[in-house]
């Protein structure tokens, strides 16, 4: 599913990743943990093809990401990868249902069909809200579940989540994790969770701990 080899990346003089190797198999849930500034988010962005690393190679779903151009990487993400960030990911002036429908609309689906699918996913996410409400009208937990529904609507084979529960209370966090991990359990999708929360990491099959941009420790949790 995902294979990172010797990945290195730096922001000007700050080295974020140093020779990181990471493999994630189908159906596996991997938690990437570590202190603030250790390179967790950069690792996720590299793995998802949002950032091109300065060293190493990244194979995502059998494709060499470095060989793909920006548009092809984005299309791959749109169709086969789901991403959830901590906050600020919904398009503020689109309604909740249109936000969730967006990946399907961008892929050329008709609006009515895309909205129906989106409404179904909002229902599965346990959201009892008006479909046409705007993101600004939602609580933090609701907005995260909408983002999760958007990430899952295409049936992704790989799901990345960067501190998905960071702005949620315990119950909200548990509900969101259940939603995100369900495809792994049911459909064999792989999930990579970036978190500094041990409670979240406990849901994973394996923990990869980063320190100063390198893998410091790796352990199976199940």
């Amino acid at each position, binding site marked *: 599913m995902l294979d990172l080899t010797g990945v290195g990346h730096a922001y000007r003089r700050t080295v974020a990743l140093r020779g990181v190797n990471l493999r994630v198999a189908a159906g596996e849930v991997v938690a990437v943990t570590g202190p603030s500034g250790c390179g967790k988010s950069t690792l996720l962005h590299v793995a998802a093809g949002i950032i091109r690393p300065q060293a190493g190679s990244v194979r995502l779903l059998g494709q060499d990401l470095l060989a793909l151009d920006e548009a092809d990487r984005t299309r791959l993400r749109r169709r086969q990868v789901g991403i959830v960030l901590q906050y600020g990911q919904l398009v503020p002036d689109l309604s909740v249902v249109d936000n969730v429908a967006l990946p399907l609309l961008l892929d050329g689906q*008709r609006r009515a069909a895309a909205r129906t699918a989106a409404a179904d996913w909002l229902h599965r996410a346990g959201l009892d809200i008006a479909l046409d409400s705007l993101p600004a009208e939602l609580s933090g937990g609701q907005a995260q579940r909408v983002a999760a529904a958007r990430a899952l609507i295409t049936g992704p084979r790989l799901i990345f989540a960067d501190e998905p529960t960071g702005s949620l209370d315990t119950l909200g966090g548990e509900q969101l994790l259940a939603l995100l991990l369900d495809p792994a359990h049911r459909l064999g999708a792989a999930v990579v969770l970036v978190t500094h929360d041990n409670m979240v990491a406990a849901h994973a099959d394996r923990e990869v701990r980063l320190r100063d941009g390198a893998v410091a420790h790796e352990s199976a949790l199940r």
Partner: protein
Amino acid sequence: MRLTTAALLARPAAGAGTRRFVLVAGATAGAAALLIAAGRLSMLGHRGPVDTRLAPYVLEGGLRAGTVLGAVLLTVPLLALVVQALRVGSLARDRRMAGLRLAGAIPREVRAVAAVEAGGAAGAGAIMAAPAYLILWVLLGVLPPAGSKLLPAPTPADLLLWLVVAVAAALSGALAGAVVHSRALVDPLGVRRRAAVQGLRPAVLGRVVVGTVVSAVGLGYVGVRNGFTVLPIVLLAALVLAFALAPWLVVAAGRRLAAGSGAQRLLAGRRLAADPSSAGRVAAVLVVCGSALGVEAVLIDNLLSVPYGLGGTLGFYFTGYGLAAVGVLVAAAVAVLTLLVGTGDHLLDARRPLASLAALGVEESTLAQVLRRQVTAVAIPAVVCGVVIGGLTAAVLAGWNDGATPGRVRAGGHALVAAALPTAAAAVLAAAAMWLAARFAARLLRPRLREAIDPENLRVA
């Protein structure tokens, strides 16, 4: 991506989105109406009888060309306003575009959304150009007395002209939207950077060189050969030069301001130097307005100093100069409005740091002074520069055209000396007008400033 999806994503949002739409549509309507007027005047006499109640400025072929050119030049500040308006709410829009990228939109699709958004607003403006042209006709073709009318009555042929201008305006708007957006490199994590506009990039250097060479050679041709047919090319080259150099003028003004003492000067100067492109467009328009004023000042002075007098024709000349002055005033007002739009938008984008400054104890009146300095630091040098350039150019051309003493400018510089007083007077007047405009602008922006420094904004991400 389907067109319906692009239209859905391009739909103007409340607040900044609506303001952007209204400004782009309004400025496009004005510019398109002027272009229709210019087209209508160009076709005068080609088909059917000419209305003899029209003013000589449009009836006589030679003068009509100047009037048409004036109408076309008046679109420049409006187009600068369109470009500025396209950047309104850029912070919120950049976030929105980043959201689209995260949802899977490829860069080309995001550019397409920006193009549809701008094209839609420009298209709405192009449709409104028809009523705008009718208003223009009422103002210039109905209300003035016989002999002073500047626009003939509309004909069915104008409908075709409107269609051509409307399609061109909508397409140009879409292109401008895509180009303005392409300056921001949006990735799913947000805007990485806005492409730098400063520096001696080859394209800018090319514009400076071409603008300078064409202006100089063209002016020489106009002066020596009396070849006024090349004047539109000279003006176009001068515009290119002004728009290429104006951001540098803004950076220089900003740095000079920041080097002085006082927090207001520092804040205003750094702000100008950080984003010189929007203020640069305004500066370019004001340089052009100033140049027109400088030329007018010298021509009026020449007219008044003719020893044998011009008798009844004096009124003809003064009416012409008066019309040109009104045009300059309108252009300058649009330029100041553009500056207001840019500054007001910055207040919205920078509301968190501004609220932080207020929390640190910086008073609202101090921040209002910063705004005023931002406007004056651009507007006054630009307009004064323009007046001096215009005055000098007119003096040189007047000297060249003076058959009694050929080449006296190059030999003795008498015409330059004679032009110094009217040029200086025009510069002082223009600077004073800009100072007043800056005070007025700062007052208009005060409510926006008050909103920006609201402590609630400390919670804005």
